[in-house]
């Protein structure tokens, strides 16, 4: 017998781990859903042999939480070797992404990779906190609940660094909405069901909390069938000097917010398991239930506690619940803690202490508060009708002791808990040989453009954006929808968060999962370039980045190879662009029905701009202005939208040349500062053709372009639809032509046409008309698919 039930008047099991054979260890891990490997289980056994006692279920659960992929990122922080055993990378994250930030050593980076969110300076008096999380597996099972608690969770990350959440972002990935129902494997929910539920969940939480959702995108790929991606981001603002994390022994452990229930048990270990046909049944309890109003109250109270300087530390309750929050807070300040678990307020009676200890019920925060400040702190929570309870005390022991009804049910040292395991992952370079497709330029490029505009990833997301409140707080200066009809697709959002200052924050993102099918290095580099250029396009600068890896199982060596490649790209680009990463997150094991998702790296960017009144939008403004293409167009169509129309992937994936890109970026920034640009749009999926069409129909302004200026030799379709990075399309008033051209000297740029009063979109090359379409038709085609 491995398990022995205790004689206590509640449910507690002892696990005879010391005597367990390796096969028993595996059994324990799988029976209790611990998601711990054999190597990790052996370490646990070793520890209990030293302690000379049995383990309790409370303890094993706590270890599984703290050692989970979700909490300690053992794969990415670990080592990588090839199939022959040769080491390829050690401490991957630390030696790539984090190292770049360290080398850059920028004074405006205030807190990086240490806490719930990255923090950068805003205006010397305030700082910005930024974080993006994923909530993929819960959303696959229960899209509304999964997505809304994803938003709730990242907002608490921001509160967890004492910042006021001021804007949300979201990037979503689904299988195509018209995926044939008959082909959907058992146990997998249909893409439209997931899409509608996720969108509704995101909107509901942000809207209810009064936090505007200002930036995002939606992508479609068959590999997301059954495993949608839900990236939830949140930006916070905090006064400089209000960040404090300095827990001292004897201080109270204060648990505030919603009550604890059985919802969200095993959320983090669930995150490290592939989704299967039976996930719904076995893991439904892992999905939490959200209550945005509870979190709104909690937010008010936490910010009041901050402003009055009442607490010495705060952290959110996310993965692992109370167990992780208490242990983390103690460990961070070199303390220990004793928790009396029966004091945790419950939604309904729970008889097993381990369930209380690891429950991931939403809307809870943990604070450390001195005895002297306790009364006032409790008053602040009471004023907002938020329950706050002292559940224990910190001490100087470095032990985490858990009591339940006066009985010790766990006693482990923080040294053991936080000597987290690191994994060694085997990688192998994929052998797939991709080929460039060979076809003639289609006769009717107008039709091709219409098809590109109606691809769901490119098509208008207006129907979704209108269900998100992007106006609340009144600080959204550049909105997700722009132009003559307020429906054009903006490149980035600009906020003016302070009433008495024109200084702005710029939020953008970059995401190119299609490129990852060919080359993960190019995908990561392109996503970084895209996030930066979207930011630059509206007027952003001094940009900081977040990385969010969503991958299939790292136990697949070819996928693990891609991880290493992507991390290297992040390091190289970060150093070259002098753009630091300040925080990040990974979600591995995104698989469903035995198939991994395509490697997906989201790059989120936060920039600033000195004066929001200089911001530029993407809609063409005036007739008879000049249209310039800035940046180099190369024959780079691998993974492009254009090739996808022919069901081809190709191989010529867009590369990034940071030295050239930097020159382009800095010129665009100067042009914006000098007021030389009427509009500016970044080129991404669908290349020049799609970007120019969007600029024209969003501004209700005709356009005549001639590609001959760009290149007389290259094929028109390639010039139009290549997805080369680091490019912008800009509109310049004729009166500014000379100053603009003088400024651009030294960077690749080309005058390719002009805007017209006619509501027509015309593209020629060498006297031959390639495209001639009515604006209205382009606009309607673009709006129809997701209406």
């Amino acid at each position, binding site marked *: 017998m491995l398990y022995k039930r205790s004689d206590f008047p509640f449910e507690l099991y002892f696990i005879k781990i010391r005597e367990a054979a390796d096969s028993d260890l595996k059994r324990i891990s799988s029976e209790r859903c611990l998601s711990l490997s054999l190597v990790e289980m052996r370490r646990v056994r070793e520890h209990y042999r030293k302690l000379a006692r049995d383990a309790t279920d409370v303890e094993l659960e706590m270890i599984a939480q703290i050692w989970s992929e979700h909490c300690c990122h053992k794969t990415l922080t670990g080592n990588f070797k090839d199939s022959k055993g040769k080491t390829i990378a050690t401490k991957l994250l630390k030696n790539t992404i984090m190292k770049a930030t360290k080398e850059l050593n920028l004074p405006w980076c205030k807190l990086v990779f240490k806490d719930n969110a990255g923090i950068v300076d805003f205006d010397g008096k305030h700082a910005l906190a930024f974080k993006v999380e994923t909530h993929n597996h819960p959303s696959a099972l229960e899209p509304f609940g999964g997505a809304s608690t994803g938003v709730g969770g990242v907002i608490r990350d921001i509160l967890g660094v004492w910042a006021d959440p001021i804007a949300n972002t979201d990037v979503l990935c689904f299988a195509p909405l018209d995926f044939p129902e008959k082909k959907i494997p058992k146990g997998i929910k249909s893409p439209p069901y997931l899409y509608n539920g996720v969108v509704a969940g995101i909107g509901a939480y942000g809207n*209810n909390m009064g936090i505007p959702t200002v930036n995002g995108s939606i992508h479609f790929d068959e590999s997301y069938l059954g495993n949608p991606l839900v990236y939830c981001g949140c930006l916070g603002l905090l006064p400089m000097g209000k960040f404090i994390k300095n827990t001292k022994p004897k201080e109270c452990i204060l648990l505030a917010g919603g009550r604890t229930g059985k919802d969200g048990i095993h959320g983090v270990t669930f995150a490290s398991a592939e989704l299967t046909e039976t996930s719904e049944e076995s893991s439904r309890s892992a999905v939490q239930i959200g209550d945005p109003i509870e979190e*709104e109250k909690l937010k008010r109270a936490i910010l009041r506690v901050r402003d009055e300087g009442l607490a010495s530390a705060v952290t959110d309750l996310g993965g692992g619940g109370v167990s992780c929050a208490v242990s983390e807070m103690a460990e961070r300040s070199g303390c220990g803690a004793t928790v009396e678990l029966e004091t945790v307020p419950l939604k309904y009676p729970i008889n097993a202490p381990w369930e209380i200890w690891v429950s991931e019920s939403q809307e809870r925060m943990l604070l450390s508060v001195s005895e002297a400040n306790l009364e006032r702190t409790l008053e602040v929570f009471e*004023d907002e009708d938020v329950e706050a309870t002292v559940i224990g005390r910190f001490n100087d022991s470095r032990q985490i002791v858990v009591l339940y009804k006066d009985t010790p049910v766990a006693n482990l040292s923080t040294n053991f808990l936080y000597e987290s395991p690191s994994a060694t992952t085997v990688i192998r370079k994929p052998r797939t040989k991709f080929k460039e497709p060979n076809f003639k330029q289609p006769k009717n490029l107008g039709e091709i453009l219409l098809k590109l505009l109606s691809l769901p990833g490119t098509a208008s997301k207006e129907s979704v954006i*209108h269900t998100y409140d992007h106006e609340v707080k009144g600080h959204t200066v550049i909105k997700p929808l*722009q*132009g003559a009809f307020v429906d054009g697709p903006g490149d980035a959002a600009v906020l003016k968060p302070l009433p008495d200052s024109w200084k702005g924050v710029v939020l953008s993102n970059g995401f190119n999962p299609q490129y990852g099918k060919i080359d993960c290095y190019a995908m990561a580099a392109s996503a970084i370039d895209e996030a930066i250029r979207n930011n630059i396009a509206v007027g952003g600068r001094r940009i900081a980045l977040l990385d969010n890896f969503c991958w299939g199982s790292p136990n697949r060596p070819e996928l693990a190879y891609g991880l290493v490649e992507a991390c290297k790209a992040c390091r190289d680009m970060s150093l070259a662009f002098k753009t630091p990463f300040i925080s990040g997150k990974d979600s591995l094991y995104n698989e469903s029905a035995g198939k991994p998702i395509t490697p997906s790296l989201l790059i989120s960017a936060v920039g600033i701009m000195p004066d929001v009144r200089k911001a530029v939008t993407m809609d063409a403004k005036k007739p008879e202005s000049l249209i310039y293409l800035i940046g180099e167009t190369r024959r780079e169509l691998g993974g492009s939208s254009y090739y996808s129309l022919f069901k081809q992937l190709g191989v010529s994936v867009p590369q990034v040349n940071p030295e050239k890109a930097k020159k382009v970026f800095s010129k665009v920034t100067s042009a914006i500062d000098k007021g030389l640009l009427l509009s500016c749009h970044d080129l991404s999926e669908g290349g020049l053709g799609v970007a120019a069409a969007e600029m024209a129909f969003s501004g209700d302004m005709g356009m005549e372009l001639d590609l001959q200026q760009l290149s007389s030799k290259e094929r028109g379709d390639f010039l139009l639809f290549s997805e080369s990075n680091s490019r912008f399309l800009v509109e310049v008033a004729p009166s500014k032509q000379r100053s603009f051209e003088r400024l651009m000297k030294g960077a690749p740029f080309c005058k390719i046409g002009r805007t017209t009063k006619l509501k027509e979109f015309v593209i020629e090359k060498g006297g031959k008309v390639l495209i001639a379409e009515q604006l209205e038709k382009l606009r309607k085609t673009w709006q129809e698919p997701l209406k």
Partner: protein
Amino acid sequence: MKRICIMRVAGTNRDYDTHEILSYLGAASEVVHMNEFIRGRKSLLDYDAFIFPGGFSYGDRIRSGAIWAKQLIYKLSSDFRKIADEGRPILGICNGMQVVVEAGLIPGLRGISEYPEAAMGVNASSKFECRWVYLKNFSRGNCLFTKNIPRGAVMRVPVAHGEGRFLLPKEEENELLRTLDRNDQVVFRYCDEDGGVAEGNYPMNPNGAFSDIAGVCNPDGNVLAFMPHAEDACFSHQHPDWTRKGLKGEMAGILIFKSLLSHLK
């Protein structure tokens, strides 16, 4: 200086926006949690005007605004009646409109009604709608919140709500509408850019409100129930197309708050 109370409860969120614009205008405004009044720490009677801001009070459970309205009636009963009866200005914005309708202040044809006599239905699109709309000022001067707004003026404001469809009892809606018109209670209607009323057309009328009504006041003109967010349309840079039109400075949304302040002077 006259004191303005921006009241809030759990789930209120546009109190920040409202407070920001009133502070900009130099008004003595204060965001006060309802608990302060219920627990007797503050008195409603100490304030000269009241704003019920937007948000999702108590998660809009039961019906939007319903719980907050009942709290006002039953927990602050006599003081609440008093401020309304005395003609102190009360502005309900968005969720605040839902609250004053639920509390029986609007339409208030025979004073405060015991039960709601109008309703805020779920948007005709059955979706939450965040978008910019145009409003036309129909007030002939009765409503104090339009004192500084020229009659017939068109203003642009955002809406952001899921339950903004103002409805009157179906069987007598036309008769009631005539009464409202006669009493000069219809203050704002959804319209197009040039002031042509929406006539129910979506998305010009974003929620399907009866007779395109976006703002309606009580017979005395001191209580305004207003669905859109004027507080987020006070400055050019809050507008969706300031980069096209070269807009600068203050915009029409601010006039509602200026009207309140000139009334209080």
